[in-house]
């Protein structure tokens, strides 16, 4: 059999270890380099050990306002996460039965994952630009003071930015829901209904506890994909940039390990979120017994 521990097995183990090293090795080097002394550069050897570059990052030395970009990214990530969970769980429930337009919606979901991000970003930017023109036209034609004096743009982090990111996170959420319901034992639900539970009660008391661990998974996708999203966000964030956008700009301008320190911090945030999610997942699974 295949799982016999022969020579091929060890070759495969070796190959897998190499792959994991390839995945994590580079990130590990920049974490290491971010703890250099003040004289350190972008490459090895390590010049002493300190937290100088983190302090530098904290002071904002030579770097744009990273603190507020960081805060914006977290806030947007949380909003995207909540919306991704709510919308994909409810759509997942709807998809258990064929409904008007369900095939089109499924097609759009898959298409959204594979449409080049720059094309989508351009499309959303064009749409909001036209919306701006239209609003200004309304303002001048009907003499609406509020628009004429205060209106600048509809483009922004929580309008176009949020929408563009949702086209990336929602498909993952819905596909996870599909995978969940394909393996879902409907007899519990039937039993609840036979005992006279209303649809809402059936969902709350039976379905939700069963799918709760998977919802953690959707939340994890929602937050992390938004927090690191770059291509779709690139044209639609308006005035305030998110952290990945600032980071992309920094790759061409910053030549000190401060960028590694920033990398270490964001990777730490990502890992914490992943860790918490996995812990919640295990806890929910255990609780269910």
């Amino acid at each position, binding site marked *: 059999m295949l799982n016999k521990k022969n020579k091929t097995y060890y070759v495969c183990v070796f190959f*897998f270890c190499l792959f994991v090293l*390839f995945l994590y090795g580079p990130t590990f080097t920049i974490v290491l380099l971010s703890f250099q002394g003040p004289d350190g550069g972008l*490459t090895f050897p390590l010049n002493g050990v300190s937290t100088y570059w983190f302090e530098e990052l904290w002071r904002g030395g030579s770097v744009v306002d990273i603190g507020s970009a960081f805060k914006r990214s977290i806030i947007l990530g949380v909003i995207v996460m909540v919306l991704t969970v709510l919308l994909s769980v409810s759509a997942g429930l709807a998809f258990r039965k064929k409904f008007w337009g369900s095939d089109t919606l499924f097609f*759009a979901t898959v298409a959204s994952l594979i449409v080049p991000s720059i094309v989508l970003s351009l499309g959303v930017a064009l749409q909001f630009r036209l919306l701006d023109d239209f609003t200004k036209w309304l303002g001048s034609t009907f003499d609406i003071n509020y628009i004429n004096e205060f209106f600048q743009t509809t483009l922004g982090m929580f309008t176009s930015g949020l929408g563009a990111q949702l086209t990336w996170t929602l498909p993952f959420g819905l596909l996870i829901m599909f995978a969940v319901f394909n393996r879902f034992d409907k007899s519990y639900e039937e039993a609840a209904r036979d005992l006279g539970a209303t649809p809402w009660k059936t969902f709350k008391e039976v379905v939700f506890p069963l799918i709760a661990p998977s919802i953690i998974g959707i939340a994890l996708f929602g937050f992390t*994909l938004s927090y690191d999203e770059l291509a779709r966000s690139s*044209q639609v964030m308006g005035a305030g940039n998110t952290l990945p956008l600032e980071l992309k700009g920094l790759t061409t301008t910053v030549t000190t390990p401060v960028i590694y320190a920033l990398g270490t911090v964001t*990777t730490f945030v990502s890992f914490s979120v*992943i860790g918490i999610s996995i812990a919640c997942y295990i806890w929910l699974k255990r609780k269910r017994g």
Partner: protein
Amino acid sequence: MKFLKLKPTVGLLSIPYSLIFIFFFFIPLTLTFIISFWDYNEYSIIPDFIFENYAYIFKDCLNFEKDICVTFKTYLSTFMFCFITWFFTLIIGFFVAYFLAFYVNSITWQIVLFLLCTIPFWTSNVIRMISWIPLLGRNGLVNDFLLSTGLADEPQEWLLYSGFSIVLAFVHLYTLFMIVPIFNSMMRIDKSIIEAAYDNGANGLQILWNVIIPLCKPGIVIGSIFVITVVMGDFITIGIMGGQQIPSIGKIIYVEMSYLQLPAAAANAVILLALTLLIIWIMTKMIDIRKEL
């Protein structure tokens, strides 16, 4: 689903989800198509119905006496990146999935190792790209190694900001897109089929080639679609890892947008999208995606 007595109104639950896709997917893409026929000047876009934006893209392309035109050159280079990346992600992704599916026996370990492969996907792509700099740079670890062992006389410049580093970054970032669907296909293979092949005297290689690979075809196709489309539209990885020197279609669109030549960018986007859809259409002829979830 025969026994599930859901009310027809349960379909209404999809409305919020649908609205997002109507407003942020269907309308933007339709507008992109429409605006690709518009005119523009330095400050504004002007409603019109002209083909100049498209004509400009293919300017000189049908003149065979000259060199190959910029557009074709860019597409060729992008297709090259697609192909090389596809090749490496497929080989590596297949064997990682193969190991996870057939050589790891306990479910717990399978989950743990699978997560180990997935976690980097949830961290920042930009950080994962720049983390190659200390390794591949002029004074990086690889060059140090090459110089100290005498394998090279001078620092190798092609390691970073080159086609090589672009492909390396793509493989680093997107092999997961191959692992997940192929692993999914492999987990559905009934182990008794493999057992039967083995009992009939097939060796490991024959089982791999005649049993496992054909049964993994759907996974391979889905993974390939993801990898190819993501490379086709890329402008960030090629930008950062190519030192902003290597062209790509995504980059053309990005630059045109920054000069506010929006209809021109839209025309490029329409062509890029059409090509991407064509590739996907050809590939999905081979499988039914919905059955694979």
